[in-house]
């Protein structure tokens, strides 16, 4: 990464942003992302179209996702290397949190 400092701008990711990035490990259009999040989160997270539309434009501007296609007025996006790195860092932090939670349960 050319500069690690920029990362702190994005971390910690909100629950919605984390799931949007996770869904975009494969190319998807907006509604595809919404369905994928529903499925991945087992129905615990819903992302509305206003939230998703705003997230797409911010994430694209920041270079975390990139447009890979457009069909019938539906743009498809996927993660960039930067986006993938930030998602991995997000998961690393979540794993630490989860590790602590499991320790607590073991008491």
């Amino acid at each position: 990464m050319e500069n690690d400092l920029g990362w702190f701008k994005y971390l910690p990711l909100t629950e919605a942003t984390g799931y949007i990035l996770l869904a975009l490990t494969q190319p998807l259009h907006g509604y595809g992302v919404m369905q994928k999040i529903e499925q991945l989160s087992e129905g615990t997270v819903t992302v509305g179209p206003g939230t998703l539309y705003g997230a797409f434009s911010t994430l694209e501007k920041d270079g975390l996702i990139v447009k890979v296609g457009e069909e019938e007025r539906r743009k498809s996006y996927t993660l960039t290397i930067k986006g993938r790195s930030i998602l991995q860092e997000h998961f690393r932090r979540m794993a630490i949190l989860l590790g602590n939670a499991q320790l607590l349960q073991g008491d």
Partner: protein
Amino acid sequence: MEQKNIRKYKLFGAWNDDKEEAWLSGMARQGLHLHSLGFPGIYNFTAGEPREDVYRLDFITDRKDYQNYLQLFKDAGWEHMGEMGGWQYFRTRKQGNQVPEIYTDNASKAQKYTRLLTFLLVFLPIYVMMVTRQGPGEGNLSEFYAAIKFIFSLFLIFYAYAIIRISRRIIQLKKK
């Protein structure tokens, strides 16, 4: 069944979009369904069976992506009813006890009001200029200038109020 159209005139402050949404849902419960809009404050309804509909308003200024924007809402089950001065009117059916939302977190909802605030602030210098500039002083036009100034002063007060209300909303959303 005979289609009956009813036109209503109503003005809502830019900070009162949730009141406007509730008003439209209330009309639907009485069997009056929004079918088109006009500027400013013109609402055209069609009379029919009462329904539990959810109305949501979005505010956008960037138009280069408008068709993709509308498609995304359509795919997500929201019908675009029209627009009024940058405000986008969407409608969907209520699903059981769940109220569908176009904004599902406070951060993105705050962004909507930030766009609105930015839009209002662009016009603020024009109003300030109209109110503070000097008229011709004496002569036939001075009364005319005084009247114009008075009208713009009222606009300015209304504007300032709107800006304060919307700023407070953004702060509240960011705090949550």
